């Protein structure tokens, strides 16, 4: 399979993206209240929080009031009182929860904005917010969630999950290990087969759009190309049907679907135009993406490791 996209350095840059984070122990759980030493760590954007929980426990263990009664598997983090969903990639959590417009990053820093770096999070070992967070008490919970997400992405791209399912046991294990160990080369040696597999025309772009504050996720079936050719639809399509998935487009011939088109369709109240953003901006990997970016290209270069484009919507001030 030939690789004819932009140079792989975009993938590298995304993989290497990280956020400086300051982690504080919840004062109520510390024997020195708010005098606990903070923990500083540079967290990779494409990684997941639970992979760092053992490190946090090792650091904060000696500060805990009642170490004996603490279960390290009950760890959770919050940002300004909002529990962090551990199954979302770290970069997405930052982009959606800080709601920060990356174009003004430097200015924010100078003006002492409350969202300036490092990103400050609070660690808890008690009162696990069961109604907001999925449980993390089984050893494979994170891997299970990641694999389900890769399957879903695969299903969207190909109309089945065969590419993920047909990975050998060794390759599946390697794929997950590459996330655990944050290994770029191992990851792409396998993911290239899934994400840029061009044996079949791509049916849908795996994309989720996250709205600010409500933490609402919008997901629709997004064809990679606009349907310019009605004759390609199966005969007698029901006019009521809203699901384009059921109308397989055999040839990708139309104009590519752009970020602007998808946002205007999914979140019309925030994106009035497909070309200019006046109310909100789409943020991916901490970058404002131009509305005219074709989704197919974006998918090949800028998907998160689970195969999805997780786009956070940031309100313009």
């Amino acid at each position, binding site marked *: 399979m030939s690789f004819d996209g932009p140079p792989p350095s975009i993938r590298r840059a995304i993989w290497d993206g990280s956020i400086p984070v300051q982690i504080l122990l919840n004062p109520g759980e510390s024997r020195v209240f708010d005098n606990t030493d903070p923990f500083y760590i540079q967290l990779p954007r494409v990684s997941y929080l639970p992979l760092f929980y053992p490190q946090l426990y090792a650091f904060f263990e000696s500060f805990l009031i009642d170490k004996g009664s603490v279960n390290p598997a009950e760890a959770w983090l919050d940002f300004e009182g909002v529990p962090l969903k551990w199954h979302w990639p770290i970069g997405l959590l930052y982009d959606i929860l800080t709601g920060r417009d990356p174009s003004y990053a430097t200015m924010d820093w100078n003006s002492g904005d409350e969202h300036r770096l490092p990103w400050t999070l609070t660690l808890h070992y008690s009162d696990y917010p069961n109604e907001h967070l999925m449980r993390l008490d*089984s050893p494979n919970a994170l891997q299970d969630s990641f*694999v*389900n997400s890769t399957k879903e992405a695969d299903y969207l791209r190909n109309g089945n999950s065969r590419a993920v399912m047909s990975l050998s046991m060794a390759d599946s294990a390697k794929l997950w290990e590459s996330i655990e160990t944050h290994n770029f080369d191992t990851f792409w040696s396998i993911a290239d087969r899934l994400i840029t597999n061009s044996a079949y025309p791509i049916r849908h772009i795996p994309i989720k759009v996250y709205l600010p504050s409500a933490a609402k*996720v919008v997901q629709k079936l997004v064809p990679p190309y606009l349907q310019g050719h009605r004759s390609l639809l199966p005969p007698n399509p*029901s006019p*009521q049907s809203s699901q384009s998935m*059921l109308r397989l487009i055999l040839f990708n011939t139309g104009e590519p679907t752009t970020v602007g088109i998808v946002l205007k369709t999914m979140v019309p109240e925030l994106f009035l135009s497909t070309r200019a953003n006046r109310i909100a901006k789409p943020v991916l990997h901490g970058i404002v993406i131009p509305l005219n970016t074709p989704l197919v290209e974006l998918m090949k270069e800028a998907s998160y490791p689970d195969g999805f484009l997780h786009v956070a919507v940031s309100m313009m001030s």
Partner: protein
Amino acid sequence: MESFPYLTQREFATAAKHLCELLSHCSDLEHRLWLLGNRTTYISIRREAPIHQSTENSSAEEDELAMEGDQENDSECIVRKVSPTKLAIIEYHIVLSPVYCVPVLYFNMAIDSTPASLDDVYQYLVRQSDLSRDVSWEETLRAVGVHGAISQGEHPVLGTPFWFIHPCETAALVENWGTVETHSIPRLDIDDSHSKKGIISLQNYLQIWLGMIGSTVGLHLPVEDLTSKGYSS
């Protein structure tokens, strides 16, 4: 159905109405149909079940989730002193997956208001369903994926954590069970396997699906309802 075994949002809404009619005959299953605007989003079904703990042996293994008909089991009751009973509340949600285009069964269980773990789910829901079968659902479910076929996920409408049965095999299951009625001229059934298949319509789609999926986690529709309520047509 436009693309059997897949459902469109509109077809799901029709199928959901039919299932709710059926559920209204099941007094132990409290159900609701939820709408967003005028769009059907999901069906919720609530079931309460006391968990009897035996006093002789308080180990969790001996706990029993009361099933219908348990009260009749006199010999068991004499031997086992039924004692502080915990209450399991199970909330099942039937949602159309926007990705897989098939219904997905989400569920949550709380035992005395404590959210259930995956072990609880297997112990109180899956194993209880196994009691009446030769083949173990537990083995079948655990053999799939990293965790087995039961995963955690966010409810697509509510955004809160739920357990769910992974839908990647659902389309195949439904297709295996039956076919859509076609209006073509009747033909001689040379293919024997074909003639044994059931006929699936929007009237019975969710009922058949629930019969296959729900029973693995303790959601049973009374069998007589499957046949006697005019669903043979």
